[in-house]
């Protein structure tokens, strides 16, 4: 019988499962999960419309999202309540991040950071001398 709260190993397991569950919020978007993380990252500093998103994502990731891919991901993110459309003054409609989207992005990026840290650490240990 494990005491309330459990051992540190259990806690670590539960934490990593919880992190994985939240990170899964983006994974549920299927083929759009990659573009979705780029879009959410771009919207993290303020609302943007389609063309501004394309340019911003290209500037910080080097990836230029094709229009169809961008709007496929936008529609999925909107359906999942991770972003919301704002009133538009012209035909370009801006989108902004919601609290759900911010939480999903935060968790997803945490996982990515851990993956990057582990990878870089292991690379440094095994391949440093070569």
């Amino acid at each position, binding site marked *: 019988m494990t005491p309330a709260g459990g051992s540190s190993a259990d806690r670590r397991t539960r934490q990593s499962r919880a992190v994985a569950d939240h990170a899964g919020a983006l994974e549920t978007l299927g083929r759009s999960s990659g573009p979705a993380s780029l879009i959410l990252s771009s919207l993290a500093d*303020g609302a943007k419309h389609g063309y501004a998103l394309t340019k911003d994502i290209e500037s910080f990731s080097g990836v230029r999202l094709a229009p169809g891919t961008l709007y496929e991901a936008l529609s999925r993110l909107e359906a999942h309540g991770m972003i919301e459309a704002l009133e538009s003054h012209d035909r370009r409609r801006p989108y902004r991040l919601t609290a759900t989207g911010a939480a999903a992005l935060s968790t997803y990026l945490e996982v990515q950071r851990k993956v990057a840290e582990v990878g870089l650490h292991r690379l440094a240990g095994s391949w440093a001398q070569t």
Partner: protein
Amino acid sequence: MTLENHRCAHDATDDPPSNAPGPRATARTADQARVRRLLLWYPRAWRSRYGDEFAELLIDERAEVGPSWRCTVNIAATGLRARLAAAGLADHPVDPEAAARAGLATMAICAAATVLSGAVMWSQLAIGLQWSVPAASRIPQAIDFMSGALLALAVAAFLAGAPAAWAAVTAACRGQARGLRRPAIMFAGGAFVLVVGGRHFARAWPGTGGHLLGHQSLIPGRIAAFGWAATMWITSYWAHPKALAAFPSSELAWMVLSPAATGCLVIGIAQVLRRIQMSRRMLRYEMCVGHLVLAGLVAFFCGALCWLSLSGGQPGRLFLAGTIDRAGFAVLAVSVVAAAAAVRRSRAAARYPPTQLHGG
């Protein structure tokens, strides 16, 4: 870059100049026409929600990088995926309720395709049973299996159709049947022509002239005769015009009229299912019936597969599977796969939060 910054830097950096006069304005007008054509890849519901802003993005993209075939292919692929989602055959529809109803309509079309191709096989086999005894004893069992599957499909059609018809009548009484009028007329007209014409031409069924060997299998002759008459147009005679010319003119007219009537019937049913307003409860019920339909399709597919695998060793032509039967089997396979996808996706769409679906 935030929206505000983006707007300030409009002319200098990100945005291509969109309202510039002269040749650029002319080019923009031409681009708008091309972009409007590209938008046709997407379903209507998607266009009404995202069309304007997406068109602006495409025009901006073209102003910056020019037209590209990669962009066109990308739009075609994502547009087709959006169409599949709108038909209840892929994830993430713009309108989940409409997608769930479209999934039911897809199911109805798959069931109709199965019944059509199945009726061709089944009524031909019934003719064979009237005239001779099959060498393989499993053939009557396969036909019994197909008969049971068709019966299950008929029961499922009634179970699904009765509440939908009631909902349509209720909507008509409330004066909300504007979008339902045309599909209802198509359905009624198609059904009338098929029933009257099918009953008339069923008298010429070749099975009635043979020996009564109906005890070999569970096939009611009159229903088989009707199925034969209603699907008389699905024949390889179309590839042999000289033989076709020897047909009585009334039969030729029926072979042209009956597919049109069948098309009207199926399109009418599909459009009613797409347009009718359903509560969540009714949607859940229709999903359950959808599973019964899927089971019927799979059962018929298995029966047809069993017959096809046995028909090769038959000495005569009465139980031999021909080109039409193999084509019908391919239609059956596609119908089963599409129906399974429709059930799965419709169920997923129906699980969206109540805010996105009608309550009840």
